């Protein structure tokens, strides 16, 4: 029935992160963090704003800088949502 009305239930996952908070804790600048993980500073800016989802490699590198697991830095916010198709 849901299919007929063009509505599908799916798991919506949004990615949030604690990078800004962790940077402040460890007193690391955006430029320094970018240098440590091998990306440009703009990438860190967009990551912190939540405008860019990192690759698994980058997420792992960032988490490693803060000596934390990926899920402690990047929070997967799950919510059951309806979407029109």
């Amino acid at each position: 029935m849901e299919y007929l009305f063009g509505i599908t239930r799916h798991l919506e996952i949004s990615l949030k992160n604690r990078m800004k908070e962790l940077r402040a804790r460890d007193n690391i600048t955006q430029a320094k963090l970018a240098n440590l993980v091998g990306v440009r500073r703009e990438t860190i800016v967009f990551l912190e704003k939540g405008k860019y989802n990192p690759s698994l490699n980058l997420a792992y590198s960032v988490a490693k800088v803060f000596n934390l697991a990926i899920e402690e830095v990047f929070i997967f916010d799950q919510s059951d949502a309806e979407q029109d198709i």
Partner: protein
Amino acid sequence: MKNYKKEIMVGLVFAIIVAGLFLWFIKHEPDAYLNIGIAIITVLLGAYTFVRQIITRKRDLRDGVPSEDEFTKRAKLYAGNRAFFFSMYLWFLIYLFHSSFSDPEEMLGIGIMGSALIYGISLWYYKTSGDFIEE
């Protein structure tokens, strides 16, 4: 020299575009001061962009910043995709209004320059907005 490969390539492409535009402006009404003025501004703009790019790259090399990372690569990919999509519309419009062009060279020139411009705007948009969060 190896580190500046990309900059040199971009510079060469830019030089060709600038030289082409310069010749085009000179060819059409060579006596018109406005056209010569526009041509000089175009050359200066091209030179400024090239020099600025070299300076930025030099600073990046000094600071150990990569010229490209996954964000810029993704921006290029999305910009290419969007530019292709909009270029189709541009070429369709050129096809519809082909009779209003004086010669085929002008029509092709506008199409190619328009496509390049659309790609430039798309790249600028994605690099500054980062607007490609996948749902």
